[in-house]
């Protein structure tokens, strides 16, 4: 078996081993969703219009649920492993063995995502069915959109990998990186639309966000799903996702090159 296929399988097995953990983290999103539910109920009740910032009540609740699920699905987490490898010198094992660290990390990461994608897909389908046919809410469901949505999500997962792969190079310069990682995760969650739809932030902030990769991680795929975007913009968005992936890839190469120089100079 190819070495990276093997690492991919190990990542998958590892995720299966910790499947309950993943289910519990999904379950934990129920509370923020409930809080948002009550928040939006109050807002809509006090408002004479049926729309707030372009969203109807049903739509905003649907967005909140999808965003919570997606946040968990694209989440990285391996940045802590990288930091550990650097701090304890485990990284040198990848220097002396014929295996690339980058290929190892991405294989293991993607392998771990397979069971999670299956779980999230299952839940999402369940929600769509409940929303559409049981609660009869006003949410558009189209099969083609769902298919394209999954392609966008796949790109989001890869994009988020690269963002955090760049971030993980902080480990080379700082011994204690927990705070940096945590803060960054929080900020990126807000900036990617993982909590509120980005329309809420107003034009000024959105102009800034247009130049950042984050909105393509959560905000964009959900807009593909809920029908807010016309097809031309969907195609455009996916091109931008690919562009960001390329840019972040180059960026990570450079940062890792610099980091490894430092790793070697301090003795590994």
């Amino acid at each position, binding site marked *: *078996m*190819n*070495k990276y*296929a*093997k*690492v991919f399988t*190990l990542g998958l097995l*590892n995720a299966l*081993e910790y499947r309950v953990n993943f289910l519990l983290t999904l379950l934990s999103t129920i509370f923020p969703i409930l809080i948002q539910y009550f928040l939006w109920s109050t807002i809509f009740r006090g408002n004479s219009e049926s729309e707030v910032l372009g969203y109807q009540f049903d739509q905003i609740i649907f967005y909140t649920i999808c965003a919570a699920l997606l946040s968990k699905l694209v989440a990285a987490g391996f940045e802590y492993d990288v930091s550990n490898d650097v701090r*304890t*010198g*485990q990284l*040198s*094992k990848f*220097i*002396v*063995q*014929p*295996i690339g660290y980058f290929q190892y990390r991405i294989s293991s990461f993607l392998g771990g995502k397979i069971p999670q994608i299956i779980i999230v897909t299952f839940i999402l389908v369940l929600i769509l069915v409940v929303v559409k046919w049981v609660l009869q809410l006003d949410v558009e469901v189209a099969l083609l959109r769902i298919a394209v949505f999954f392609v966008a999500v796949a790109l989001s997962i890869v994009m988020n990998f690269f963002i955090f792969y760049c971030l993980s190079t902080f480990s080379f310069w700082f011994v204690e990186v927990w705070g940096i990682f945590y803060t960054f995760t929080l900020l990126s969650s807000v900036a990617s639309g993982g909590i509120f739809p980005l329309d809420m932030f107003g034009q000024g902030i959105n102009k800034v966000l247009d130049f950042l990769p984050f909105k393509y991680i959560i905000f964009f795929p959900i807009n593909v799903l809920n029908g807010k975007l016309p097809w031309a913009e969907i195609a455009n968005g996916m091109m931008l996702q690919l562009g960001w992936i390329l840019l972040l890839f180059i960026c990570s190469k450079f940062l890792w090159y610099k980091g490894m120089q430092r790793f*070697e*100079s*301090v*003795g*590994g």
Partner: protein
Amino acid sequence: MSIIEVQNLSKQFSYYKKEVGLKSSIKNLFHREALYKQAVKDVSFTVEQGEIVGFLGPNGAGKTTTLKMLSGIIYPTGGNATVLGYKPWERKKAFKQQFSIVMGQKNQLWWDLPANESLNLNRCIYEVSDQDFKMTVEELSELLDVKELLKIQVRRLSLGERMKMELIAALLHKPKVIFLDEPTIGLDLLSQKKIREFFKYYNQQNKVTIVLTSHYMNDIVDLCKRTIIINEGAVVYDGELAKINAMFDATKIVKVTLSQTVSDADLLQYGVIKNVDGLEVTLEIEKEQAKHNIKSMLDHLPILDFTLEDTPIEEGIAAIYQHGRKQA
């Protein structure tokens, strides 16, 4: 051509000084004074195929740094080295496939996996064929007595068991050169012995070249004909371990048990008194006079028991460490 050739290899580390106290901490935010430490300086040696060479030296002497340069983990700041004809720090795949490094203080196995999964991963990494893999694991696990433990998660193994698994993992691809950095550290005597015997056998069977560092004298004495001693980054001795003492002080140690006390003055005729504990006396005698002095001791002193020893190698080595420091 020699398997390992090292010429004037040097490594300089830079680090920052920080003095005690808040004031200097704040000062350090703006300006840090860089200091340099010469971890390895002008080290040269060659190793032939099939040799087992021991690397000795006090902590911080530069043993591990040298091994790290020879395995390509760090770049040297000066000099040159080739291992199997490759410059290690170029990290060619063909080179990586032919050597192994085992560090006693770092583990290379995947903690969450059972040992055989981890070995299997190494099999894929090194592209070892299924058949070779099965044979090697079978043979080595038999030799090291860990066959029953292959299915257990690595984190649940004891230190000695884990080290044995590390060795199997490091030998899967049949390396031609093996670097061992303190492979027996923290192990009990029995495990240490097992691992030494294993390497002795493995070296004879496969004609592999081994470079070994250790603080346990037994590891070096048992395994290595040749020893390179480095101190403060420089080679201070390169040769047979047994000849170290001859180089420095040519003395013998005589331990005697007396039937009644003898005055120090009487003892001093024969040699330097190292220790007196009641009736147990230890003397150090010049080698040239040893034969004569011992004979007259036996004739004139009330001796019950008597042993004759060479100065322990440790003392010769300690002398070399200190000698090197004076030169530096």
